[in-house]
């Protein structure tokens, strides 16, 4: 019998009060149970207020104005960059590039690094568990450059198969390794320092998709030993925003990604010289308020404590896993709950995931159903789709009790 933890690392009932949307009911009178944070997280009052405050008190364009507002907004914008740099433990703020989301950060590397330094006869290594945003850019890069693309495979337990890494040992000219720190569809946590050593032993760079890790656990790009690290603000209590961290020596060698305003130093009719880091990679007016909002999200998460958030989610995941394991006809995917992030990916025998999610919605429970932008993972486990519940700092054991009760209702509705 699954037993709810007596004490949790976080007082999530109190944290919920910071999130206005979590106070509203679902379908008029149901308690809203939000279990889709791996898709996008909700926003605390502190972030929402920051967005309003920027527009109400400090808005103008950045890096332009000689007037008071322009100076003030630039200070807040660049201050947000300092916060993100601190959040990632980046050695330098110059290495933090604001992007729209992790997807854009990964594409930036694929274009600005990949198109310049990867060519025919070279090899790119990624994994079968990647979100499409860390798979398609490399597949496209391989097609465009004539490089070959190789995959680390998944074990039945949902982890990267060390044998497949062994088999890739003989691949020549590996120039780039792209891997996620945490799987969005299985929750798997990858050993980035080990993969970074493997890449660097071959003279390759390693690009890490941090979209599913950075919101949920402390990140230290120096400890990870990676070369690039991409995050999405909207998954970490922030607005639509993101950042790419990259090592200075690589960013310096790369060509720009997008060209236009801001990323230039001098322009004449024949040629242009690039701005210094990080602005060389920030063409055009950025999403100013959103980037400042991302800084506010970093403040919020750090005040709660990333270690405590990770511990809280681990307790929730273990409890949720044990609840689902008690329901006959429910199959779960992914590693042991102690070895993964806050993701519960499952199927209910005899019911399509969309129907599962739809019936859960009737109880005010928000989960995702589908392939989670990881079609190769779905094929690996022989399913078209799964239902995924994902937890964050504002979730409680009661939210998972509601999920389990909802699944029983699904089974009753469909008579399975």
């Amino acid at each position, binding site marked *: 019998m699954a037993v709810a933890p007596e004490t949790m690392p976080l007082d999530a009932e109190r944290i919920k009060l910071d999130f206005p949307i979590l106070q509203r009911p679902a379908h008029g009178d149901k308690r809203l149970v939000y279990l889709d944070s791996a898709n996008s997280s909700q926003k605390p009052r502190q972030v929402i207020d920051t967005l309003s405050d920027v527009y109400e008190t400090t808005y103008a364009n950045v890096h332009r104005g000689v007037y008071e507002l322009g100076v003030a907004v630039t200070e807040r914008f660049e201050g947000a960059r300092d916060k993100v740099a601190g959040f990632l433990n980046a050695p330098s703020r110059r290495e933090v590039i604001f992007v729209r989301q992790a997807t854009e950060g990964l594409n930036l590397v694929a274009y600005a690094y990949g198109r310049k330094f990867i060519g025919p006869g070279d090899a790119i290594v990624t994994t079968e568990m990647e979100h499409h945003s860390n798979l398609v850019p490399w597949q496209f890069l391989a097609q465009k450059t004539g490089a070959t693309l190789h995959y680390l495979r998944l074990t039945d337990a949902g982890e990267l198969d060390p044998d497949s890494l062994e088999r890739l040992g003989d691949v020549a000219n590996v120039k780039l390794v792209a891997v996620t720190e945490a799987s969005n569809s299985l929750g798997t946590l990858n050993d980035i320092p080990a993969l970074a050593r493997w890449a660097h032993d071959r003279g390759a760079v390693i690009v890490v998709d941090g979209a599913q890790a950075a919101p949920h656990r402390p990140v230290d790009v120096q400890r990870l030993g990676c070369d690039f690290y991409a995050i999405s603000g909207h998954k970490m209590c922030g607005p639509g925003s993101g950042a790419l961290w990259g090592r200075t020596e690589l960013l310096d060698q790369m060509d720009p990604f997008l060209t236009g305003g801001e990323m230039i130093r001098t322009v004449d009719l024949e040629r242009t010289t690039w701005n210094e880091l990080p602005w060389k990679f920030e063409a055009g007016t950025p999403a100013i308020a959103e980037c400042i909002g991302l800084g506010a999200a970093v403040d919020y998460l750090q005040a709660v404590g990333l270690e405590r958030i990770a511990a809280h989610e681990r307790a929730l995941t273990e409890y949720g896993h044990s609840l689902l394991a008690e329901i006959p006809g429910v199959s779960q995917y992914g590693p042991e709950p102690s070895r993964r992030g806050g993701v519960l990916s499952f199927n209910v025998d005899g019911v*399509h995931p969309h129907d599962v999610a*739809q019936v859960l919605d*009737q109880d005010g429970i928000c989960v995702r159903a*589908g*392939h989670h932008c990881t079609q190769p993972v779905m094929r690996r486990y022989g399913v078209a789709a799964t239902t995924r519940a994902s937890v964050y700092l504002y979730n409680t054991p009661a939210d998972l009790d509601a999920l389990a009760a909802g699944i029983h209702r699904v089974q009753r509705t*469909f008579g399975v």
Partner: protein
Amino acid sequence: MDDLYRENILDHYRNPRNSGHLDHPTVSAEGVNPLCGDELAVELLVTDGVVEDVRFNGRGCAISQAAASMISDAVKGRTVADVARISREEVLDELGIPLTPIRLKCALLSIGVIKVALAELNGEGIPAEWAADNEITWKSA
């Protein structure tokens, strides 16, 4: 939302009408929606311009499977020209349940494969209104 899985939808889902294969189909077509993994194939027996028999097979959510079952009863015995005139709205009226935009695709997959099969029968390409749906892959034979 509570009546989405009302009893007649669940009945069609659990006991689909005209499910399986025909011995000698005149024409067939299939549609795949990778977004949710719905796969649906239709086989039609057409004699003298009349849809004499129909079979659906595939897998997918309750909405797509129930819609296929309901539409299969509705097209049997009707002329090809008549079936070709069935609109999306008629199918949705027949289902009679409120659907969000994502679930509309589930509900309309079955009429889509029928339209694709009939276009094949008439030696035409995939009808423009269905070809425009770039999320679904259609095949006909």
